[in-house]
């Protein structure tokens, strides 16, 4: 069943087109991602799905309802984890959940019970009666996720769920989101981290300049738009450009970045051997598997995180 259905969806702010006619279908139970750099239109799309931003044009159906007309009814069945935390710093961790539950008309007693369960789920039970103010960024994000679950939503929207967190905190958030996914909750997330998209998403769209440039599972996208392996070469020189010509013909594609050269190849070791046969001596050599970063680079000619 399709929970989110968009056709030719457009969002304009004055002369600026943030979302430029996208088609999206999100099915029940899947983890769906919007991958793209800052300014690609991901957050604007999420806000339209969250029914806090009316579409300028196109079709948008959520839970088979019309966001223009049924905003409150749809929002009652969504959980939203915004990019900027808007927790109440002056309330306790528990009160943040119980007061938010009341906005959904959940009875106080149920709200208290659910808050206890969710604090357990995001591993904040020990901090239940602490204020939010002294909590770390990772704890706050986990609390925001718990708050997004307080109404037992059918779809959880996560806008950049781990941006700004340290690696350990990120992994803890991913692990919780993975458990939600296993429980059958539909997740829709935006990210500009390809590892996040690869870890969490069953299916994703790559966005750039308000448009969708590719769609599929992480695996399928890598297979379609990249090679199995990538060789990263760094040369000790002012410009990497000069070496590109000498590398021509190795693998399917050569990509020159300001600080390194990428060779897209089927077999990394074989390619490295060829580089040595041509008597080139890069300062460093790295063979790795292709990632979504490479897909993005191929599709747009740019890296994801500048």
């Amino acid at each position, binding site marked *: 069943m399709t929970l989110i259905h968009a056709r030719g969806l457009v969002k304009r702010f004055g002369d600026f087109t943030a979302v430029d006619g996208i088609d999206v279908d999100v099915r029940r139970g899947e983890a769906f991602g919007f991958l793209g750099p800052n300014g690609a239109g991901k957050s604007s799309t999420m806000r339209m799905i969250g029914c806090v931003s009316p579409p300028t044009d196109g079709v948008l159906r959520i839970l088979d309802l019309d966001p223009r007309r049924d905003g409150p*009814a749809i929002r009652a069945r969504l959980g939203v984890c915004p990019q900027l935390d808007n927790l109440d710093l002056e309330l306790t961790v528990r009160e943040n959940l119980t007061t938010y539950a009341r906005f959904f008309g959940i009875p106080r007693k149920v709200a208290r019970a659910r808050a206890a369960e969710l604090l357990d789920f995001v591993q904040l039970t020990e901090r239940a009666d602490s204020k939010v103010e002294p909590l770390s960024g990772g704890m706050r994000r986990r609390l925001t996720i718990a708050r997004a679950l307080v109404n037992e939503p059918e779809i959880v929207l996560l806008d950049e769920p781990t941006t700004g967190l340290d690696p350990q905190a990120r992994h803890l958030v991913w692990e919780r989101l993975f458990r939600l996914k296993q429980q059958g909750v539909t997740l829709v997330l935006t990210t500009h981290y390809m590892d996040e998209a690869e870890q969490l998403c069953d299916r994703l769209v790559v966005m750039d300049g308000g448009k969708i440039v590719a769609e599929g599972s992480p695996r399928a996208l890598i297979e379609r738009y990249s090679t199995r392996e990538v060789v990263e070469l760094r040369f000790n020189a002012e410009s990497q450009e000069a070496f590109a010509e000498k590398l021509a013909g190795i693998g399917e594609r050569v990509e020159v970045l300001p600080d390194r050269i990428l060779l897209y190849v089927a077999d990394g070791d074989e390619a490295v051997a060829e580089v040595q046969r041509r008597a080139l001596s890069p300062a460093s050599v790295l063979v790795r598997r292709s990632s979504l970063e490479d897909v993005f680079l191929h599709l747009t000619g740019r890296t994801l995180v500048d």
Partner: protein
Amino acid sequence: MARYVFEYHLVSYRRVWRGSVLSSFVLPLLTMLGFGVGVGAYVTGGVEGAPYLDWMVPGLIASTAMQIAIGESTWPVLGGFEWRRIYFGQSAAPLRVADILDGHLAFAVFRTLTSCGAFLLVAAAFGTMHSWWALAVLPIAGLVGLAVATPTFAYASTIRSDSYLAVLFRLGVIPMSLFSGVFFPVESLPVALRWIAYALPLWHGVDLSRAATLGVAPAWSPLGHVLYLALWAGVGWLLAYRQFGRRLVV
């Protein structure tokens, strides 16, 4: 649904109410003692036939209503968009813009009513109430609160920095509390200034409150006062609603 938002503000207030008691109750009480008793001693013969303290107290209650309501409509509203960002969290829930606005307005009126209620009790203990009509001071205070809170909500949701709030206090709140007949009759003002007092909402609340506690007829028809205050509240609400919508639904 607005009641859930009101409930949230009450929970939030539970953490800070002790501090707010000082500014919302002790300060007007000190003003009452300082002006009413101190200055009152020099105003022999009273004003309009009543002792100065008794004459001034109802005005001071209306003025307190105005100050509390504006206090609750400035930093808390600006912060709700700019710092605490609570409105954005609320708008992601199934609340409508009107619920978010009305719930917060209800809390501003609640603060106005509780502060003025406490003030009224103390003032009654000083023997300044001449009539049972004095009970009408509370709904009047609520109406004054709403009449100033709604336009202030609109203003505070339009600006992006609190330096604009200082402008509001210097050019709006302070002149209004000085020239609305709280401390001396409006008739003592030059005619031009008098019309400013008539145009602003506070004087209407002062005149009504004074008539109620002294048990005399107000200078204007009571219905005229109430309608004029309701007009401020209504126009202010429309402006605030439009501005909240612009910030929350984009």
